[in-house]
């Protein structure tokens, strides 16, 4: 019985926080957010030097071969920094999908460069109807002599503009009832990317059209029947971890502010209303962090508990983040409503995290269904 981080994980966490405080402070984050691309090649290069993109990539493909809990620890720090860029989507989700379902050739072609920071993957999942169930997809992979031909339009594809490849969910099988996952190079003929404007400026999204895109047999991910679910699960954990870090950050910002800002001749932190708001964030946050760690651990180690644990963590961490961000903005008073203050970047990110990979009510219903009630 050991519910704690290993020494290595503690080190990862500390070094990540230290690194991001130096290389991606709020000012840098704002600079990247203001740039059209929404990521900093320089920061991406430094991250690659630290081996972050390969964290969960098997060693034989140039990664560190670590697990989802390690990734969650790292992503908590990225959320703390509101780090912009494709990292979460590529290194936690696309990398997981490839590692879990890619053949040797596919891994060599995409996973190795991804781990080295030379390629980034993006997920093309939901469509205009915004559903996560395979039956919601119109995108289909029609069997053709040389593999499959993919037709369809995917919405809200994160960092599609700068992606090297897409992991595309498409209907396959007889009657198109199963969800197949295909790896499609961004420069494949028939792929067209149209940027969307995101509310959360630390993220970029696009519409990706697949117009008769040829997908050779080896481009389809293989593996367990629940691979699609697992990939969504990796996404949910990643967003949950980002949310825990973000909630911690808005709390820290509000507490710091409350210690220095004076009203009625006292620091506002001496008023009970401010204290209680901060205390409520802590009371929400600390158990949610433990739950998120548990979900990330279960994802790798406890297959029978994983799906339910992930749904619990996604629902809770996002609820907690949104509520914390609302409270923290309010604790700042007027200054928290200005563009010049940094907190709105986290405030908007909390909103976005809630939507991505299924909102809390969706995951609560999953918890109920998987819990047998």
């Amino acid at each position: 019985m050991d519910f704690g981080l290993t020494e290595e994980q503690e080190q990862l966490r500390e070094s990540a926080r230290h690194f991001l405080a130096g290389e991606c402070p709020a000012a840098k984050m704002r600079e990247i957010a203001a740039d059209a691309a929404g990521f900093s090649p320089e920061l991406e290069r430094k991250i690659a030097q630290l081996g972050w993109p390969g964290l969960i990539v098997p060693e034989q493909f140039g990664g560190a071969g670590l697990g989802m809990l390690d990734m969650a620890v790292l992503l908590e720090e990225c959320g703390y920094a509101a780090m912009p860029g494709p990292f979460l989507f590529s290194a936690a989700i696309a990398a997981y999908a490839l590692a879990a379902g890619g053949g040797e050739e596919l891994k060599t072609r995409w996973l190795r460069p991804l781990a080295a920071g030379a390629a980034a993957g993006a997920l093309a999942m939901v469509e205009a109807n915004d559903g996560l169930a395979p039956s919601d997809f119109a995108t289909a992979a029609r069997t053709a002599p040389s593999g499959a031909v993919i037709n369809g339009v995917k919405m809200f594809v994160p960092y599609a503009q700068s992606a090297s490849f897409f992991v595309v969910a498409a209907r396959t099988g007889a009657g198109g009832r199963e969800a197949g996952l295909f790896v499609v190079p961004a420069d494949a003929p028939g792929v067209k990317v149209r940027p969307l404007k995101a509310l959360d400026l630390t993220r970029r999204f696009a519409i990706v059209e697949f117009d008769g895109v040829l997908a050779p047999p080896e481009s389809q991910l293989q593996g367990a029947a629940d691979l699609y679910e697992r990939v969504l699960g990796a996404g949910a954990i990643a967003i949950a971890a980002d949310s825990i870090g973000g909630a911690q950050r808005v709390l820290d910002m509000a507490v710091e502010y409350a210690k220095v800002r004076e009203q009625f001749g006292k620091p506002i932190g001496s008023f009970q209303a401010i204290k209680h708001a901060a205390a409520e964030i802590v009371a929400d946050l600390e158990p949610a962090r433990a739950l998120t760690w548990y979900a990330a651990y279960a994802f790798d180690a406890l297959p029978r508990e994983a799906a339910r644990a992930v749904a619990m963590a996604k629902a809770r961490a996002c609820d907690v983040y949104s509520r914390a961000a609302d409270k923290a903005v309010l604790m700042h008073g007027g200054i928290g409503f200005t563009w010049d203050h940094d907190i709105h970047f986290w405030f908007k990110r909390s909103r976005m995290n809630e939507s991505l990979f299924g909102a809390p009510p969706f995951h609560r219903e999953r918890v109920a269904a998987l819990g047998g009630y």
Partner: protein
Amino acid sequence: MDLNYTPDEEAFRRQVRNWLDENIPDSGLRGVDRNADRDKSTLEKMKAWQRRVHQAGYLALSWPKAYGGQAMDPVRQSIANEEMVRTRAPALIGAMGISMVGPTLIAWGDDEQKARYLPKILAAEEIWCQGYSEPGSGSDLASLRTRAEIEGDEFVVNGQKVWTSNAHFADMMFCLVRTDPDAPKHRGISYILIDMKSPGITVKPLVQMTGDRGFNEVFFDNVHVPRRNLVGKLNEGWMVANATLFHERNMLGSTTTTQMLFNRLKALAAGTMRSGRPLSEDPVFRQRLADLEIRVEAMKYHMLRQLTDSIRGRNPGLGAWVNKLVGTELNHDLATAAMEAMGDYALLARDDGHALDRGFWPYEWMFTLGLVIGGGTSHIQKNIIAERGLKLPKSR
């Protein structure tokens, strides 16, 4: 109790509605009712709109006739306001003057001040902004530190104001300044009127988290203001301002906007498919919608009750203290529900072509939080309800 309007009132409503339908300009103005950037041409259009409203007899509804107002009874005032919101009539650019300075001058100003300012407020010839908040005094307004020293016939003003809506195009500011630094904090404040073109004033825009301008910082560096611009007595500005603050609370209290927000949310839910059916048919979201509608309706009747009190000339009592708190939080909850209803579409900025409901909600979600904060955050509102309403002892 009788929730029917008299035939006369119904006729008045039709008359207002008809006038609005025929007169609301075709320009992009409609629905501009939130603080936003206003370029010169928009500004001119808005002034023209206000003048048209004035000529038609629908401006300054509560002002006495003697000062160019309509002296309408509270029912007609509320009918006219409802119709303006319902038809999404353009905002009145001079609202600050009509709702705040005007009533203050009518109550506290001398004859010269009334003659000098009131007509120009109505004619949209002078646009006003409010100089209350300062960087060091948000919740604790009375701790303000902008100094006005008397030199002969003038005040010399030094200091800074913040959160000043419209200051970048306003002609005049009504401003609280400290005129006696040694007096207890509420007793050393005066209420003065400042020409925004005076030398020494610098206006610096503040950008909101929405990305829009609308608020400003205003810096005063030895700004000279004639002594005749003092409203009420020297060092009694806190009392003068409190009357105006009450008007501000009432401005925030209208529920027509809240009802429109709910209707828009309901339409959004009906039009949003989730797992193969409209979100409005999802039992869980229906609970949420119904709870919001119930709170909206409760607020509607709560305001009608106050309207009745006002008709009867009675003090609305405790009830009136909750309007700002309940109203702003309800609006933010409505916008938050809409954001959740949109699923991944909530990811989109308001100016993306795929944004649902023409990008209305992301902005509204943020702006309504701004309203929870502005004019006394919910924390402050609760203090006020407890201390002034329930007579619980002050903490300070």
